[in-house]
């Protein structure tokens, strides 16, 4: 449809994949050198952590894990647009965003080790435990934003999800609620082209995800999800729109999952390696942004090496901290079913404690 192409036309980019920069937009954004570098630092930290976690999984030190390499620009750029007081409802793949929003690496590692403590971020970090049920967090994010609106607080809620999640009823119900009630929420979809083995053409008949916003008369933005500055700009626009009472936005960040779906997945079963190579060659977010920073005179190979070492050390330290921690015993779980365990549960807890104490 001609008209649709128009609606979806503005595919936002600031740094083209060729490395060219849209100076006008860059100037408008008016970012300090520090901030530009900081974004790179987080992207790199996320990438290094991803690589490390993958290794740890292979060594059996953590459980199944969903790598996010390739999606750093989307995750870091969007999270940078938030205030600390904003709420985040992530999916299992949004570790980069969680990091930026204050989730300690230590915490994430505990989660991936399957420790009870892993689900519980520090008090001042408004990041929900990662959602496993595809789309489940979407109406919840609407509800969370609704609470802020009712209390006339300025907080915005962001909900992360993938291209596959757009097929779920909860996506539809959540977006409809948000648009009817004009809630301060940003629906951030990372269209990484795949839902495990299902390519986007089998997921939906539409060429874009952004156009689904039309079903709700909702503001939409389609952005190059491998261009961290464009993602930052788009999300900031959506977040400010929400904060100013303008209501929700659906953002489609077009990106790519370079790795397997999870460590239990073998993408060779269903996709050509050439597709991956092509995306990486043309659009890889870190390479592109690094080039940009080098061109801007903000980064050298040398300073990048230093940064890398610093980050590796930070990651190692956090992982070590996590690995020193002992798993909460099963009995502790019983305390978190209700605010107070009921009689029956208490009895079972005592049974478990006894069993543990006696080493059975």
């Amino acid at each position, binding site marked *: 449809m001609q008209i649709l192409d128009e609606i979806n036309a503005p595919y936002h980019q600031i740094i083209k994949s060729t490395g060219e920069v849209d100076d006008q937009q860059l100037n408008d954004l008016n970012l300090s050198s520090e901030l530009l570098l900081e974004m790179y630092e987080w992207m790199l930290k996320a990438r290094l952590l991803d690589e490390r976690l993958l290794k740890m999984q292979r060594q059996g030190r953590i459980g199944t894990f969903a790598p996010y390499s390739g999606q750093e620009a989307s995750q870091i750029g969007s999270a940078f647009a938030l205030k600390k007081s904003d*709420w985040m*409802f992530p999916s299992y793949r949004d570790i980069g965003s969680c990091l930026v929003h204050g989730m300690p690496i230590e915490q994430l590692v505990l989660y991936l080790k399957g420790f*009870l*403590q892993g*689900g*519980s*971020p520090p*008090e001042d970090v408004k990041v*929900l*435990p990662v959602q496993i*049920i595809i789309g*489940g967090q*979407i*109406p*919840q*994010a*609407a*509800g*969370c*934003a*609704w*609470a*802020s609106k*009712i209390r006339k607080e300025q907080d915005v*809620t962001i909900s992360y999800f993938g291209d596959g999640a757009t097929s779920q*009823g*909860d996506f539809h*119900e*959540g977006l*409809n*609620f948000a648009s*009817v*009630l004009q809630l301060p929420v940003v629906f951030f979809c990372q269209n990484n082209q795949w839902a495990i083995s299902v390519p986007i053409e089998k997921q939906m008949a539409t060429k874009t995800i952004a156009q689904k916003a039309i079903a709700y008369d909702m503001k939409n933005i389609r952005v190059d999800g491998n261009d961290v500055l464009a993602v930052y700009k788009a999300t900031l626009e959506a977040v400010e729109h929400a904060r100013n009472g303008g209501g929700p936005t659906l953002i489609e960040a077009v990106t790519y999952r370079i790795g397997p779906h999870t460590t239990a997945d073998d993408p060779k079963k269903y996709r050509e390696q050439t597709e991956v190579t092509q995306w990486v060659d043309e659009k890889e977010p870190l390479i592109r942004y690094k080039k940009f920073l080098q061109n801007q005179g903000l980064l050298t190979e040398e300073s990048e090496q230093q940064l890398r070492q610093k980050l590796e050390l930070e990651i190692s330290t956090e992982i070590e901290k996590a690995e020193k921690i002992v798993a*909460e015993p099963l009995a*502790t*779980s019983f*305390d*978190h*079913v*209700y*605010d107070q365990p*009921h*009689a*029956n*549960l208490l009895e079972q807890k005592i049974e478990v404690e006894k069993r543990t104490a006696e080493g059975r």
Partner: protein
Amino acid sequence: MANLTMVEAIRDALKVEMENNESVILLGEDIGKNGGVFRATDGLIDMFGEERVVDTPLAESGIVGASVGLAINHMRPVAEIQFLGFIYETMDQICAQAARVRFRSAGRFSAPLVIRSPFGGGVRTPELHADSLEALFAHTPGLKVVMPSNPYDAKGLLISAIRDENPVLFLEPMKLYRASREEVPSEAYTVPLHKANIIQSGDEITIVAYGPTVPIATSVANEYLQKGISIEVIDLRTIYPIDFETIIASVEKTGRLIIVHEAVKTGGVGGEIAAHISQHAFFSLRSPITRVTGYDTPYPVASVEDDWLPNVVRLREAIEESLNC
């Protein structure tokens, strides 16, 4: 004090809690101007405004999902699911989400919300309006399931549910909405959760009932009292977690137990009670525990629903069987 029906008592509970606590908001289908299809929220929109009594789009998973988010962000949502038969649409948001927010986050977040929903047979509703589905939720740790059987309890239990720090499913027997009136205090009061109520004490047999089957149990118990046989009637009030202590104490005294509920027999809450009591009061039992329940078919069409539901006739038969065993 006011002389209220159950549905009026429920409205009263909502009113006083909305007055007491700014965080309480109501959401659901047709609860605003229309005041709910049973008028449970009638007039509340005029008292508290459209911001706190919200007609939502027609989407149950959205309603509960949004309630989870509201609750996480410190509101006290009271959602209405128009009929319990529609709750299947929300099972993920209730069982996999609301019930687990606290557990998943090791206590960092929680989702204290209330879901109210009418249900129950005998009132000639269309398909899927009458089904008793409480058992689905009595298998979901993290939830509480509450069911009143009279106006006084309805108000006190609903206030407790709203104040509870955990997600509560509050099931309202349609048949009892206007079945009787009762003096109900005008102010806020609570009836404690997970505490069964011994409505009538007796020595020879224990009947556990809840919601719509309580009147059946009491009427049969009265009948037997005339004949000199004393029956203890326990109104469960909270379906999950179950107050086994009260039931065990009773069965240790009477040695006989009958459970009455409208839900389908197999997999119903009656089975759980029978299993638990059989185990923990094994040596007190003088006869097999029996259940008087809906049959193992979907809830049937209106022309035959009365034959399907537990009633005084079937309860009498069970009592005779139990006594003559």
